[in-house]
């Protein structure tokens, strides 16, 4: 009896030692990752509250002697030409991203539903064609799309961007949402139809609410993708009043190469909307990935 208890307790303590080892390794690793992730962002924030002069010092001021919000004031001041530009870029980005997001959801939801539910001929072929879009780098399409947009008269319009961005988001959106619809029992819709709903009502009243996390995740993904996109905006737009934030900032600071506090403040301001959006909705995103993409 006693020997059994002894070996049991020994092996338990031994195992605990092992688990502790892994746990400590995990903690140290997480601290390292935290530093790697956060320090650049912290340095961005610190730099953004320095004066141009204070930023250009060696060794650097770890914390500015005279913190100032001058860079932010300049960017957000509609009287100032810098502020005018920045606010316009911001607005352009917001418009393009929102339009892209709404259209993505409108196009992706029925397509994903059809790929999940219906067994029409060519279904697999079409589905994988849609997925393949992700395989191609933006640059491959850049020249022909530029020519196409010129034909359609869309160069220097936000329409050209919205149309293009739509196709970035669609493959992942359709794939994610299809996974969602696959997991919703078809009997729910059948029950609704027997209970007196039309096919469309069954979809709107029963299926749509159940796929809300997927739709939210899809929307976030499209929005962030559109907000951050650079290469098409850089190629398709040339008029200053049309630029979106990434291109606008780049163009602006290629003319003011040493205003690092301004650049950091602009980078920060550009990141705020998407980071906030993502942090608020991230649990939907992880859930959508779990249910839509990973678990089948």
């Amino acid at each position: 009896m006693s020997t059994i208890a002894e070996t049991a307790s020994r092996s338990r303590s031994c195992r605990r030692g092992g688990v502790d080892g892994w746990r400590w390794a995990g903690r140290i690793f997480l601290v390292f990752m935290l530093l790697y992730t956060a320090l650049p962002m912290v340095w961005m924030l610190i730099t953004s509250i320095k004066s141009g002069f204070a930023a250009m010092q060696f060794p650097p001021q770890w914390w500015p002697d005279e913190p100032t919000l001058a860079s932010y004031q300049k960017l957000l001041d509609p009287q100032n030409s810098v502020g005018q530009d920045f606010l316009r870029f911001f607005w352009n980005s917001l418009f393009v991203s929102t339009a892209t997001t709404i259209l993505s959801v409108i196009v992706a939801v029925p397509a994903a539903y059809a790929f999940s539910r219906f067994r029409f001929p060519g279904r697999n072929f079409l589905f994988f064609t849609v997925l393949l879009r992700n395989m191609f780098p933006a640059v491959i399409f850049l020249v022909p799309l530029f020519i196409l947009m010129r034909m359609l008269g869309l160069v220097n319009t936000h329409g050209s961007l919205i149309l293009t961005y739509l196709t970035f988001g669609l493959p992942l959106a359709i794939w994610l949402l299809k996974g969602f619809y696959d997991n919703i029992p078809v009997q729910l819709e059948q029950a609704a139809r027997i209970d007196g709903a039309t096919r469309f009502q069954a979809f709107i009243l029963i299926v749509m609410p159940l796929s809300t996390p997927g739709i939210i995740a899809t929307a976030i993904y499209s929005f962030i993708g559109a907000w951050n996109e650079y290469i098409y905006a850089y190629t398709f737009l040339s008029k200053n009043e049309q630029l979106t934030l990434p291109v606008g900032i780049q163009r602006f600071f290629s003319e003011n190469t040493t205003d690092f506090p301004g650049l950091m403040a602009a980078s920060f301001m550009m990141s705020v909307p998407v980071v906030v959006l993502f942090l608020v909705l991230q649990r939907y995103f992880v859930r959508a990935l779990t249910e839509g993409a990973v678990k089948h």
Partner: protein
Amino acid sequence: MTIVTGKTGARQELRPARWSLLLQKIWEHRADYAYVLPAIVVMLIVIAYPIYYTVELSFFNTPPGLQLRDKIFIGFDNYTAILTSQVFWKVTWNTLVWTLASTFISFALGFAAALALHRDFVGRGVLRAILIIPWVISAVAASYIWKWIYHSDFGIIGAVLVGLGLTDRPPNFIDSVSTVLPSLIVVNIWREFPFAMIMMMAGLQTVPDQLLRAAKVDGANAWQRFWHVTFPHLRDVSTVTILLLAVANFNSFIIPWIMTGGGPSNASHIWITHIYELAFGRQRWGVASAYSVLLFLFMMTLGYFYVRALSGNERKEANS
């Protein structure tokens, strides 16, 4: 029995009429296509036409300024020009290093972070949120942040190294041929490991507890449980994640373009930045198109595995 004869009889009857059956099926399902039509139309405009056009253009010598009426057919000359040029092989090597290093290190860091975050502890949610932020931040912003961090005169890393007495003067991270590519890869990983982390976190949630408990009862230690239960269970997710990362890295443009523009002396040019420069910088549309076609062929090969990984689950379902 009558059942058997009935069945085989029907099959023989229907076999010769397969084509009309398909047409009939398409007709029966005509309403279903309405759902996918918008997606397909958008895809056709933005994929099919550009692919066709790129292939066509790759066989022509094109004048600058996109006056494409004046293009001249030159057969495979663009392709031979590319494959015999020095730059091509240099850029290809860079692309390989960039893609492989970024992909595997991002995946390893992301997977490890997902594992470390899988256990519940105080502040887990906050930590997870912070680790995800770089993925959400625009690559343009990230490029500028790191460009400032790497700055050869006022960069913080250089200052720390000097402060610690490791070097006499701040190193030229992105102005030197030997360090530029690794430096950019660090930035890229910074932005991409969170994606791997999210995917693997989602995957970890699907590992059945029962299996882990069974393994524990069978006497497996933490490492054995990971290796024999968790890891095999995550194989599909891992494949998809690695493929998505590889594709994204292969196609990345912003970080090298903004931080170095491919320099110094092509040391940080990868395929995409190089193609962009050929097309929009030097206006050699034909050559750029030929490059794109080569890239396209390469991606198709990769795409085959991608589709297979994505459809893996579906096939399993169909078999069961």
